Structure formats: C-alpha cells, structure tokens
C-alpha cells in the first residue's frame, strides 16, 4: 500500500481483497476452529459471523490505538502479542457481561458465541495484519470489518453446504469434520478464481 492518499476505489479494492481474494479463512488459514465448529447450522453460522464482525470492528481499531500510542512510543513492539490478546480477551469478556445483562435475546443470539472469539485467530490475526500492512486508522477499521465479513461469508457458505450434507450418503468415517474439511478445501479452490480481480 504505497499510495499516500487513498481514494474511494482503493477502499473498495481493500474490501474486495479482504473478502474474496485474501479471504481470512480460506486463503490465510485464520479462524478455522470456530469455522468448523459453528458451520453446522445456518443460524449458528450467521450469529457467529455477526459476533465476529462486531468484535473485530471494535478490537481492530483499539489494538491499533494501543500500538500507535503505547507500544511504538515506548519501543515495546515485542510485547505486541501480549498487549493485543489481553485487550481482546478483556474486551470480549466485557461485552459478554454487558450483553448478558441488558438483553437476553441478544445474548442467546450473539453473546454465547463470544467466548469462541477470544480463541479465534481470525481476530488476533487481523489485528496483526492491520499493523503489518501499515494501515492508518480509517483503513484499519475498513480492513477489520471487511475481514470479518469475509470470515462470515465463508462461514455462511459452508453452513449452507453442510446443511445439505444431511441429504448425502457420506461414508461413515468421513462424516462431519472430515468431509467438512474437504469441502472447505473445495470452497477455497473456488475462491482462487477471485485472484483475477487483483492486478
């Protein structure tokens, strides 16, 4: 990203790239455990996608601020991992507490997926990528949300396919996770086609 000034089209390209070309799940291998765990049913998958989008939309910018105003000035870059994961863990726990108190329906729909997010490498991974790609604050927000949407897209596609597994005669030993992984591979293969979108 060597442009100094970013135009609208650059942001569009960033979003397209994060969702399709470098899909966080299928191309970058981040967030696979919840991917396989929560893609068995469409409603679960959708809730998880929403929860991840919300958390990443918040923690992406927060970690960026921590990096910029705490770690860089005091030359503590080696503590990045520690500071980021601590922030994410605490943030997720806080949000869970708040949602549980203020809205039971929302908690049933979203909150119960929050503990899964702490251990979701897609979240921490995206925070690292924000720093690695030297994004500014706005780009960080856009990239974080777009990455989470890419995660959600892959999750929902997978859930749609896995719901249909019920109709298929899958050999017993390959049922569930095994066929899930193979399917994920095939989805990933089809996402290769999007690489033509980038220059």
């Amino acid at each position, binding site marked *: 990203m060597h442009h100094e000034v970013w135009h609208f089209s650059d942001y569009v390209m960033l979003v397209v790239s994060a969702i399709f070309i470098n899909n966080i799940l299928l191309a970058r291998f981040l967030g696979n455990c919840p991917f396989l765990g929560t893609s068995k049913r469409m409603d679960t998958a959708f809730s998880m996608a929403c929860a991840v989008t919300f958390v990443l939309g918040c923690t992406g910018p927060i970690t960026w601020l921590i990096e910029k105003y*705490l770690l860089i000035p005091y030359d503590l870059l080696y503590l990045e991992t520690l500071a980021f994961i601590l922030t994410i863990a605490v943030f997720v726990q806080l949000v869970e507490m708040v949602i549980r*108190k203020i809205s039971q329906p929302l908690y049933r729909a979203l909150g119960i997926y929050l503990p899964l997010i702490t251990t979701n490498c897609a979240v921490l991974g995206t925070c690292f990528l924000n720093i690695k790609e030297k994004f500014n604050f706005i780009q960080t927000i856009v990239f974080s949300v777009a990455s989470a949407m890419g995660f959600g897209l892959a999750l929902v596609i997978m859930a749609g396919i896995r719901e249909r597994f019920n109709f298929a005669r899958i050999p017993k030993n390959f049922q569930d996770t095994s066929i899930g992984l193979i399917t994920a591979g095939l989805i990933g293969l089809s996402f290769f086609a999007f690489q033509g979108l980038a220059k």
Partner: protein
Amino acid sequence: MEGILGATVYPVLVMGGLAAVFAVMLGVASRVFYVEVDPRIKAVEELLPGANCGGCGYAGCADCAAAIVRGEAPVNACVASPPEVYEKIAKLLGKTVEAKEPQVAHIMCRGTKDKAKIRFRYMGIEDCRAAVLVAGGDKECLYGCLGLGTCVKSCPFGALRMGENGIPVVDRDKCTGCGTCVRVCPRGVPKLIPASQKIVTVCNNHDAPPTVKKICEVGCLGCGICKKVCPEKAIEIVNFLSVVDPSKCNLCGKCIEKCPTGAIQQILPG
C-alpha cells in the same frame, strides 16, 4: 535507571497499567452486570473440558452446559470428554437410573406374512410411518406390525433387529427400556413391559372376535377364555384384547393352554 534494569521500567509500567485498568473494568463489570445463573450450569461447565471447541454443536462449553442442564442436550453431548465425565454430569443432575423395576420393549404382534392377511402390495417408502399413510397400511389388521423396521432403525442402542418373518425381535440384553421404539411406531406395536414379566398376550388388535378370525391366524380374539380359566384373575379383556397383570400371574399356564389362537405366550422360561 541505567542498563538492563532501566529497560524494564517502561514495559512493566505499560503492561502493569494496562492490566490494572482491565482488571478494574472486569471487576466492576462483573458486579454491575451480574446475572444469576443456575449453579448447576456452572457445575456442569466445570466438568466439561472448557476448550470451547464447538464440537458439540453448541457455542462453547458454557452454552453446552446450559443445554445439558435444561435437558436439551444429552449428558454425553460433549464430544471431547471421556465417559467418566458423562457419569459425573449424570450424577450431578440426578439423571441416574432410579431404583425401579427395569422395563424392556416387547413387540406385541406375531402376525407374520404367512399368518396375517395382506390387503395389497405396498410399493412406497420403506418406513412404517410412511406406510400407514397409504390406505392405512398393507395389512388387513389395522393394529399389527407393518414390518418395515422403523423401530429397528430408530433404536439408539441397536437392541432391535428384523426377524425373518417381518416382525422385529428385541435383544433383551441390549434394550434399556428407553421407549424410543414405542414412540416411533405408528401403531404402538412395541410396548414396555416389566423385565420380569413372563406371560404376555402378544397381540395389539382391538377388533371384535369375528373380524380377527378373518384377518389373522394368531391374533387375540378377545374371546375371554383366558379370563375365565385364570385362577388368579390376572387377565382382563380391555376392548377385545386380553391383558395379563404380571403382579397377579402365578405362571400356571392355563391361559396359554386354552388360548384358541396362541396369542398368549410365555416369553421367558420359568
């Protein structure tokens, strides 16, 4: 403040500060946003591995624990736990088998293909529940076993197998008396009986005697001979079907002798 010790000042201050702020936030939030939860959920959660792997299909161990306590998920819902954990959870929730007379399922029909009359050739889906939708089933008898094995397929313990003549057979060693077969059978042919019951009327037909005579060679006619000959008055005729009360039965075997169709059977020796 020189040298290596000096270098530790900022990291310690920054991380310590961050941690202190977070700890205060969490501590305050945990009080302000305190929500009462069923202590059993917490207890079950303790027993689960806590890996939040999502393998059970629920969102994390806490959710799975809640589902187990609510009774939505089986005690063994967690795929990542060894059997000991299941036992512990069952104990915790008081879901152990109570000390009562164990029950087993028994197929209350002997109307095999050669004994019970068939009305037509059924050509539909291999499932009893679907078969009853087609003109009420292919047997003349509207109470008997259709023999398509829905109970066999649905038994979670593999305790049922299809016999040679199209009537399922219960493996009494494997049967836990869970009653799944009773629930799935569209005609209620399997019934739960006390595991010690030895004499049973193996029929489910409630038709009047002349009708039964016409449609099945081995059905209970509801003629009442067994009731008459029973010295212990252990047999009742309920809606043209004889029912043996095992608590009164003294195993004299007179009913078996006299039954014109052989519907009353001794199913256990002794």
